């Protein structure tokens, strides 16, 4: 009869973590119940209560997860960059689907583009500025990674902080642009172009937000003196991916 795992590191206990369940509960309340409360049942109360339960659960889950991830030793080290690259394949396909929807509408419209309701003077300088901001943030994060390689933790924190500021500036530009366009009665339901415009830029902006969340997690951990080159690398890899997607968003949505 084979005896179980004697003399192993994990020998006498089952590994557990509260973090994954906290994250799922947070997402369930914040995203699912929040959305359903607001949009399906038009109940601000249900939406606010759900978000009120969801946000702390989600944040607690992420904090617990980052802490564990930076202190526990994995079975095999250094697999996360490969895993994130595989995940990015998935992300590419989700963006491709959105672009496919946009191209379908765009190409079937023929000469009637942009459709009625689109403002005559679309601001084409702002996306250029946003491109510069995002590319700069990719560069500043690269500097942060170099600092980390030199074991300069305070330099790392500083450059991550600058990257976060640039990311926030980018989102600020998006908010400004949306407000401006909404004011001109260009809303998601105006026409086919507004449909694609808000969906694709909005979806990209949500990725910027997630990237910023990851940066924040990296920064907060680094403030406690915890860091890990794989985590730092993955955060950067995701950010560069979001950056590259922006080139496609900008060229397809604004300049075509």
């Amino acid at each position, binding site marked *: 009869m*084979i005896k179980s795992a004697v003399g192993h590191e994990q020998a006498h206990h089952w590994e557990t973590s509260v973090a994954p369940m906290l994250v799922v509960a947070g997402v369930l309340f914040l995203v699912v119940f929040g959305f359903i409360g607001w*949009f399906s049942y038009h109940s601000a109360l249900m939406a606010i209560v759900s978000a009120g339960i969801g946000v702390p659960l989600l944040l607690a889950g992420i904090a617990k997860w980052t802490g564990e991830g930076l202190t526990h030793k994995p079975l095999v080290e250094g697999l996360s960059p490969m895993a994130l690259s595989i995940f990015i394949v998935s992300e590419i396909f989700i963006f491709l689907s959105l672009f496919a929807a946009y191209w379908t509408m765009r190409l079937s419209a023929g000469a009637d583009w942009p459709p009625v309701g689109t403002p005559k003077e679309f601001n084409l300088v702002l996306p250029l500025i946003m491109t510069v901001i995002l590319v700069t943030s990719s560069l500043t994060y690269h500097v942060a990674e170099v600092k980390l390689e030199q074991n300069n933790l305070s330099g790392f924190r500083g450059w991550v902080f600058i990257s976060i500021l640039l990311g926030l500036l980018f989102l600020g530009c998006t908010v400004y642009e949306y407000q401006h366009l909404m004011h001109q009665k260009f809303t998601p339901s105006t026409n086919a172009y507004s449909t694609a415009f808000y969906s694709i830029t909005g979806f990209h902006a949500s990725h910027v937000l997630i990237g910023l969340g990851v940066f924040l997690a990296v920064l907060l951990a680094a403030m406690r003196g915890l860091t890990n080159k794989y985590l730092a690398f993955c955060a950067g890899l995701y950010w560069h991916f979001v950056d590259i997607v922006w080139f496609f968003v900008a060229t397809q949505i604004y300049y075509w």
Partner: protein
Amino acid sequence: MSTASSGFKLSEWLFTTDHKRIGVLYLIGSVAAFAVAGIMALLIRLEQMSPGPTIVSDAYVGGDQYNVWLYFHGAAMILGFLIPGLTGFAANYLLPLMIGAKDVAFPRINALSVWLFWAGIVVALLTFVVPDKPDVMWTGYPPYSIKTGGNLALYVFTVHLIGFSSILASVNFLVTITYMRAPGIGWFQLNMFTWSCFTAFIIQLVFVPVLAAAVTLLLLDRYLGTHFYDPANGGDVLLYQNLFWFYSHPAVYVIFLPAMGIFYEIYATMAKNPIFNYKAAVYGMCGIVLISGEVWVHHLYYSGMPDWLRIGQMVTTLLISVPVGLMTISLFGTLYRGAITFNTPMYYGTAALYLLIIGGLTGIPLAITVLSVHLGETSFTHAHFHFIMGIFATFSVFAAVDFWFPKIAGRMLNEKQARLGFWFNFIGVNVTFWPLFIIGVQGMPRRYWDYSQFPPHFADYHKVATIGAFIVAIGMVLTISNWIISAIKGQRATDNPWGSRSLEWTHTATPPGPGNFPKDVVVEAGWTPYDYK
């Protein structure tokens, strides 16, 4: 036999990051979804017993009630049972053991996957609580899904949660299989089940995001007033069908591949034979991955498309039978001159071969455009995909639980009850679906609850089918109750009751404890999991 942990601790199960316990959590969730979706199937069958309203309240709200059953049956069976039962339960429990790893590459992400799946089940079950029940089939086609009063958000979030769970599991297992094989295990020494999951996870990784995008756009159209699927404002209603089937046809292979993988393991072990044409079967699986992305348009044969595209899609769809044929021959060949032990897993295995052949052959007329135009929207299609996808894959989950039960529970299953359950299941599905094949050819449309405008003799066939469904229900109760009772009271199992050569039997305790293996697994040169000669 001695597992390190003493006794049952709820927190150790709820917060577990161990792949084996996560696998069991997947099994519990998917069997729960299966049970509720099965009850929906019985309701659907009862309603179809007679042409007009049978069990629905009256002719006015009958369609709405029936649509909810149809929605939950489809969505829960595919998203809540088949996919999580195979790539959730079976892959989680077995893959790390089969490749000699202590766990998956990212145990916490694995726990995240299982709880996302459970959250998806919870959202799906809300169907029975909310006043505006979703009634959009599992396909959610616009414009109906956007115009209906049913709660579309529940459908979309079910897909999102379970879809995200699948994507994370794919990433996790692709990395695990690639980087965490025990020293000495090469790519062509992997178990067939490992290969089948590896290919299924590639399909999931690439195609699930497209489904996620499709339903997200549905959500935006419904709640934010965008126009993706609204032809009046420059959108395209067929765009949804394209995006949806771009994932949902390959989803059939996400289910089919691990199901085949399970039967390979059972065949090899029970016949004490190596896999016949191992490499050809592996190339077959890879071929399915390659072709799976080029066949989705055959779901749009009747939605309107140019003729040249119909022909092209017919060719690619028929082409799928080449890799499937390679895999089937290899499955069949594994029995050649074997000393076959006929126990319940092997009963299911044999039944699977029959289901595979009948389901596969009835797929050919559906792939051929001229025949498909007549048969596509009839109960012939309904019976076809229940044979090949529904029953074949369900039997694979049952066979998997029965086969690995001694390892998972540490106890033997009650073989008599398992066998009785098998016969009820097997006879029941034949009684249910053969009549549907026949009236399908005669023109019985699929999905209808009220078929009073069709020939009256259809009702007789429907009655037989309904009796069949209840026979299946008895079989399911026998099978699932057997798992529960035997897990508590069964006879203690030895480490390797079937005499398998695979790592999960030869190198682990029963049931395996934390860390899986007593000592690090290293296999000698030339080792294979099918070393029977």
